[in-house]
């Protein structure tokens, strides 16, 4: 049983560019979460999917951030017009419908130059 996977593991981009980060959850997990973690801080919630729909996107910092999960499995976090302040580790997690435990992927380290 594979765990949550995220690609790429590292992404370096220039200010103003567009990036996509991918998350493959554990098979059968209906809930998927995106978190962002800055250096020296705990993860902070961005968006949560239940199936294909975003159940809670209150953590997205602004409209440059968008996420999709079109088939209820793989999710993509999209960041437009990246800024240096977007540099962080982006973590994805999944859980079962009635699960309390969230299983985290290894994260994508995004660096905006």
């Amino acid at each position, binding site marked *: 049983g594979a765990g*949550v996977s995220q690609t790429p593991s590292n992404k370096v981009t220039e200010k103003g560019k567009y990036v996509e980060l991918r998350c493959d959850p554990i098979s059968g997990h209906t*809930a998927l*979460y995106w*978190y962002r*973690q800055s*250096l*020296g*801080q*705990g*993860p*902070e*919630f961005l968006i*949560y999917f*239940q199936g294909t729909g975003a*159940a*809670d996107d209150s*953590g997205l910092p602004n409209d440059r951030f968008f996420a999709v999960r079109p088939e209820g499995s793989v999710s993509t976090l999209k960041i437009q017009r990246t800024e240096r302040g977007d540099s962080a*580790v982006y*973590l994805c*997690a999944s*859980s079962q*419908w*009635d*699960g*309390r*435990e*969230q*299983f*985290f*992927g*290894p*994260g994508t*380290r995004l660096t905006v130059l």
Partner: protein
Amino acid sequence: SQQGEEDPQALSIQEGENATMNCSYKTSINNLQWYRQNSGRGLVHLILIRSNEREKHSGRLRVTLDTSKKSSSLLITASRAADTASYFCATDGDSGNTPLVFGKGTRLSVIA
């Protein structure tokens, strides 16, 4: 925003000693979980304690929860160098599959 605060922010102990980390949170919770993180990457789930539980054990881990004080503690007994990591507490709301709210973490260093 962060829900909880871990205390201490950093802890350095000798191998074989016990390590105690504390977590305080602000709002009512359904569950409290502890996670471990190595090298700033993926988090590993350690233990979950429900709001109606007061203490839980898993191997060398012991977690307590005091909902009246909105606090929890994580005890690692007989620490090993491999326990060196950051430890986070995380709380969730009172419905299923709610996002976790993490504290800032305690950085534990176990010296061999």
